[in-house]
């Protein structure tokens, strides 16, 4: 099987989750030879997206090393026929709205949903990206962004007096919202403007006055109404009562800085799910020569004592590598048993409690779901716990039209994800609330992670083997990127982390004169000119000023003119 593979690499990466793929891409990008392996037959590990059938199958088999405590439930009939029969028995109900909701539920059965299986991309670890956040910046600066497309999150929501309301975040949102009166609009805009410019003046009184206090205390000082306060605390700064002033302000600014870049909110969601993200990094790794093998088991890893070179035994074949980077769940048992305690990851612990829900109706008002349903973000609070809810419609490429997909994530409190999530689920899918979405399917599972104590360092400098981090409880990928960069920095101390990959036009193909214009890339009339020039073997050094004299308007010129005209 592994016969084609070279027997030596600079780096072997095991697992194709986000941080592993990040390191693999970065190493390949700076010219290292990389072998990237995954024991699974799919990309992404615990960061992957699945179609409905594979997802159900994964849960059916009880998950795997990194995904445990799985359970799932169908709330619809096996097939549509049976469902119709049932509908007869409930006929005669008076409430039209309930009837309509029921009707929607009846449109689906387990069978019809599974028929659309490949239209689903169910994320194990869903994320939302700040438009100016770390991941987006990394994707853009590395040029990896060309492998993915995104959907702007339509609404950021919050719960206010048992209703789900839209948090107006942009100027046009504030203008359009019916949830705030005009005085509140002014106050919110004024507050946000204040946050936006906050810190420009270092001697700002507030900065001194509120140092050491909480963000909530600061908000109270700002004469804003309760509704605005809730919007800011829950949805914009996403903080708690004890979040410090500095932290809350920094988060508000992160939110505001991400506004106005792509969509109406500061957030993006990857089309076809977050499982695409690690794959984008893998593609870059491959483009720069990385070799990919899925569905390969690692039998063992040995480290030569004198050279510190790792020998990875891959389905019987030994491959040597300067370094190995692995997802915590994929290190072979034989290896771990010989190194008990060294990597601190022998035992994985409960990290995130996850719920995935399908419904035929979206959450919240018509306004939040205009045009067939929004991709919406809602942060939920229950006591001191919080959870992130992401509603996805078919516009995100993660579910078929007519179905809404909900991800709820919270930090694991126990090995019973359903119980951990119950206080949040009851807020949005309360069966007694006739406006709440009626569920078609629900699933719970736990994402496992490394236990983190002060005794287990993220990376151990003395070894050739590095272990990546499992998903964190965070909206974006910030912490995961930081930990991937840390590993990269240990591997290649002075190398740049994912410098911009050149566009195809910039690359000099072997044997090509880097100074020459490629005839192929020119428009017809210029091609003709080029040929003429070459034929007459004329000297090409014409003064630059000629261009200006000819009144030629290049694209740059035109753009400048446009800007002037604005």
């Amino acid at each position: 099987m592994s016969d084609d593979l070279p027997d030596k690499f600079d780096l072997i990466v095991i697992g194709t989750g986000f941080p592993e793929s990040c390191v693999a891409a970065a190493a390949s990008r700076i010219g290292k030879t990389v072998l990237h392996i995954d024991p699974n037959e799919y990309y992404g590990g615990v960061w992957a997206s699945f179609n409905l059938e594979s997802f159900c199958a994964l849960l059916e088999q009880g998950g795997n090393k990194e995904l445990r405590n799985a359970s799932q439930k169908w709330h619809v009939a096996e097939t549509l026929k049976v469902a119709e029969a049932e509908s007869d028995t409930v006929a005669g109900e008076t409430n039209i709205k309930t009837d309509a909701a029921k009707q929607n539920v009846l449109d689906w059965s387990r069978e019809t949903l599974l028929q659309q299986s490949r239209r689903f991309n169910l994320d194990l670890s869903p994320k939302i990206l700040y438009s100016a956040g770390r991941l987006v910046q990394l994707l853009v600066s590395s040029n990896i962004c060309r492998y993915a497309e995104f959907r702007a999150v339509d609404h950021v929501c919050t719960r206010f007096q048992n209703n789900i309301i839209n948090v107006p975040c942009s100027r046009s949102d504030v203008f359009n919202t019916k949830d705030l009166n005009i005085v509140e609009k002014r106050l919110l805009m004024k507050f946000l403007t204040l946050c936006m410019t906050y810190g420009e003046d270092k001697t700002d009184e507030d900065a001194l006055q509120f140092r050491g206090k909480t963000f909530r205390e600061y908000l109270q000082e700002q004469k804003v109404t309760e509704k605005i306060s809730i919007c800011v605390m829950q949805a914009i700064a996403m903080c708690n009562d004890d979040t410090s002033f500095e932290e809350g302000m920094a988060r508000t600014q992160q939110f505001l800085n991400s506004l106005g870049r792509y969509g109406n909110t500061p957030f993006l969601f990857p089309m076809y799910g977050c499982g695409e993200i690690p794959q984008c990094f893998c593609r870059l790794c491959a483009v720069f020569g990385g070799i990919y093998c899925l569905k390969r088991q690692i039998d063992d890893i040995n480290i030569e004592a004198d050279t510190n070179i790792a020998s990875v035994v891959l389905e019987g074949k030994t491959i040597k590598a300067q370094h190995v980077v692995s997802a915590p769940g994929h290190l072979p048992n034989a290896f771990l048993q010989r190194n008990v305690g060294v990597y601190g990851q022998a035992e994985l612990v409960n990290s995130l409690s996850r719920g995935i829900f399908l419904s035929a109706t979206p959450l919240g008002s018509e306004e939040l779901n205009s045009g067939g349903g929004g991709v919406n973000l809602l942060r939920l609070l229950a006591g001191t716990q919080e959870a992130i809810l992401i509603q996805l419609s078919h516009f995100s490429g993660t579910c078929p039209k007519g179905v809404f997909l909900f991800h709820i994530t919270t930090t694991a409190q126990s090995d019973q994800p359903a119980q951990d999530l119950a206080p949040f689920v009851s807020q949005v899918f309360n069966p007694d609330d006739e406006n709440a979405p009626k569920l078609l399917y629900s699933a719970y599972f736990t994402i496992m992670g490394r236990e983190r104590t002060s005794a287990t360092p993220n990376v151990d400098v003395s070894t050739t083997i590095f272990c990546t981090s499992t998903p964190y409880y965070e909206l974006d990928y910030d912490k995961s990127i930081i930990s991937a960069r840390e590993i990269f920095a240990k591997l290649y101390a002075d190398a740049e982390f994912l410098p911009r990959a050149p566009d195809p036009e910039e690359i000099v193909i072997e044997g090509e004169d880097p100074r020459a214009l490629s005839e192929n890339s020119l428009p017809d009339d210029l091609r003709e000119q080029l040929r003429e020039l070459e034929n007459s073997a004329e000297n090409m050094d014409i003064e630059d000023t000629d261009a200006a004299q000819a009144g030629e308007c290049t694209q740059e010129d035109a753009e400048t003119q446009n800007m002037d005209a604005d």
Partner: protein
Amino acid sequence: MHGRLKVRTTEEERERKKKEQTLKVKAYRAAMAKIQEKRRLQQLDDEMLVLTSQILLRNPDVSTLWNIRRECVEQKSLNIDDVDQRQAIYDTELNFSEQCLLVNPKSYNGWHHRCWTLEHSPTANWEREVMLCSKYLKMDERNFHTWDYRRYVVEKARTSKQNELDFCTEKIKANFSNYSSWHHRSLLLPQLYPYEGDAQPKRAMNEEKLKEELEMVLTAAFTDPNDSSAWFYQRWLLGYSRQELDVCAFRCDNNRAVLSFTNPIILTEEDVVITDSKGNIKKKITNWKSINGAKSDTTWFCSLNGDKVLEHINDQYLLELHITDINVKQITLKTYKQSVYFFKPPNQSFTFTENVLNELQTQLESCESLLEYEPDSKWTLLTSALLMRAIGSQKYHDKSLKYLGKLEKVDILRENYYRDMASKWILEKYLLDWTSSEDFPGKLDLRNEEHLNAIFYPQYLCIADIVLVSEKLNHYSDKKQLQGFIAFKL
């Protein structure tokens, strides 16, 4: 290293760019030379179209080439009778100009060429053009070229005005900082919701709709006070920019007549007649002279030496006017000493119905409550002041002036602007009060109005025998209107 990535250095790239630029210049020159030669020979053929395309795609603003294209198209379609075939020629032009507009969406030539093409093509698809506009406005919702073009094609496509208004609303919802879109709105609303009441000057639109619009625009103003587009629209709604042509003042004795208007007009001799109560023509006033010698003016006078116009001063006299744009045809004159006169103080008839007034009142309350939070907010102060004027300039006279006074302090850069505005309001109030004072219309004494810094309505002052102004307004004294009625002579 073998197989490693090689990227052009900046030096190499510059050289390539330079070569490309050189090629472009050469191509441009070659094409231009050929085009000129062909034009001289009147070879308006397909080759000509190709040559012009190459240049226009890089720079859509070479007008000459567009003209040549039009000549080519006309030439080409000259001998083709088949409609479809002819249409195909024009469709090519539409496609082409669309490509050019992608290069520069603000190319006057590009948009113009589309208009020309559609006007000349046998079967123009106007709906498609409306869709095209929507597409371009999605890329840049503030491109006024597209908005202009949209008005043109919407007219042709007979798109319903309501649809247009809805489109416009969507654009404003997306970004209200958009002059073009507010303007588009201001053109549609009076047609869709015409005003049917009898207030003078007429409202822009149906008052129910006006109320909604006021609400929307105040929301915009509260959301982002620094955006001026909403302000312009608000003022338009409140009627500040719609001073209609009307008579402001008239006075006449046996020696002279003076007649003034809200806006400058050209007064001709047939326009004005004085009759008695029985309708007998007493005097047809000819020989009007504009007070400043301009062709068009607000104030006109005429010397009547010798004419016994007002034989029985206690009679009822009427002024008959036949001026287009002025609805009032007959004005009853009042008597003062040996003269007759008419006077209508500025900006007084502007009252709203209960419904709109309630809305304005609510808005004023919102502003006031906001001022409790932000007592120095300049735009809230200004909106409040403007709202007060709209609700009742008399009732809120002092308060609105107080706000302007405050604005002079908090917004010092525009101090003079507020002063001028105050002067305007003061004068309006003074002129109104003047009508019921015992000096009226003989004497107009502005000396005690200490905040009056400018005189905005000199045409109203011309009927007083004497106009007294304070020291600081002395520079106005060369205004002929301020010299008093008696001073009028040829």
